[in-house]
């Protein structure tokens, strides 16, 4: 397991393929979104509320948490973040497996290591890879899109756990895709069903963390991560062996 992980790490350091695919995709999309999508203005920016709505909020005693941002803006920005991460993960992570097939090292790997060890090694590699990408892209995202975040800890926790969940399932899907004829685009389609719960929980969780409202999905994400990783480990052996 450790050997598989170290092998992937060395290989990636020598010729970066997964991290370059993933990092470039995520960076480009974040910049593109921040350039093209309007994220301020009436309905997005609370400062743009007219007097009556503001008076009503004051009258009812509703706490105006963040004058800079409505719930719509929070959900919009959260959705962007997770969609970018989803597409990045499912184009980048399969590279870890397609690389083995392209360089014809998959056969050798099948001979020397048990499937469970390969799965665990690849999984750890993918989780670390995607966490690194998420850690690198989050500051850029914060800088370019400027979300107001009421509970930074919750925001970070959702991203950390959600990213791990995505890479867990994406590892199995990557193995499937590498064994099928079409490399690449298929992963994005295959991932949607199993990963939609993660995306929904992630989007709602980060939006709630931005607005400071209720809604914490970290525990739900952790249990989904555990369940899907166990299932993936069980199915990986069937997908991997010849």
């Amino acid at each position, binding site marked *: 397991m450790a050997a598989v992980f170290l092998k992937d790490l060395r290989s990636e350091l020598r010729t970066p393929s997964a991290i370059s695919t993933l990092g470039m995709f995520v960076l480009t999309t974040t910049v593109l979104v921040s350039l093209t999508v309007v994220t301020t203005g009436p309905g997005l920016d609370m400062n743009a509320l007219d007097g009556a709505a503001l008076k009503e909020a004051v009258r009812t005693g509703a706490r105006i948490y963040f004058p800079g941002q409505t719930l719509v803006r929070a959900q919009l920005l959260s959705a962007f973040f997770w969609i970018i991460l989803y597409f990045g993960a499912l184009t980048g992570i399969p590279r870890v497996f397609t690389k083995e097939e392209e360089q014809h090292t998959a056969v050798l790997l099948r001979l020397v290591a048990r499937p469970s060890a390969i799965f665990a090694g690849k999984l750890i590699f993918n989780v670390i890879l995607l966490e690194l990408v998420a850690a690198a892209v989050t500051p850029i995202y914060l800088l370019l899109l400027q979300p107001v975040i009421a509970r930074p800890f919750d925001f970070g926790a959702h991203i950390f756990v959600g990213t791990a969940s995505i890479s867990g399932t994406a590892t199995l899907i990557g193995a*499937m895709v590498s064994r099928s004829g079409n490399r690449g685009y298929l992963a994005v389609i295959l991932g949607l*069903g199993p990963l939609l719960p993660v995306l*929904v929980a992630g989007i709602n969780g980060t939006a709630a963390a931005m607005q400071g409202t209720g809604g914490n999905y970290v525990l739900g994400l952790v249990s989904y991560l555990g369940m899907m990783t166990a299932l993936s480990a069980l199915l990986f052996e069937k997908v991997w062996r010849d």
Partner: protein
Amino acid sequence: MNRRGLAFWKLLQGPAMVGLTLLAYFWAKPLNNGFQVPEAARIIFWHVPMAMLGLLWFFVAGYHAVRFLFGRGSGDLRSDSRVSFACEVGLACTLLATFSGMIFAQVQWRTPWNWDPKQVSILVLIMIYVAYFGLRMSVDEPQLRARLTSAYAILGAVAAPLLMYVVPHLPQVQTLHPTQVLTGGLDSKWRLIWMGFTVVFLGVTAWLFELRVRLAALEARRSEAGDPEDQVVVEAVRRPSGGATTGAAG
């Protein structure tokens, strides 16, 4: 020839369908509680069973996938065919449920699509089915294809119930579905006809599934026997008066 060929439940389906359709139009009175067009309420008989069966056949596919990967006699390609046939039947059901629902939504809410949780869940279900067939089409080697697609069917079958739970939490999703009509407000006539249709449609889809399995068995037998064109010649030479094989008309 085929011992299940004349099972009485198949013979019963024709009269049952005709009877239920007559009952649906002449016995059940149009519903006035909340329907724009009271006549349109009859969608319950058709649309709701289809949506239920779409999910049911998805779990049938998951069951056969588990059998293929982990069950006794795993690696049996017949189990794999059953997974794909169950997915075909399930996809047909979900598509029919979706289109009938869209027609109803146009009448009821003046829009075919309003991001109702049920619409979203069935859309995701269709996406999983489509992904399944996409994966299936991209692999040539039968054993490998069977393993990959079965693993995906299991992954989907585990995720599907969770999707039903999480989809209503999507930000833009609000339900317009008159669920209270089904759970409480349905009178006994409607309930009876609706249940009858559910059973009959279950029978029809099960029959479809069985026909698909038998067809595959026949195809397998034919390809085992060699090239079909040659086979015809061989049989013609051997038995000039031999009749056609039974079962093809099944």
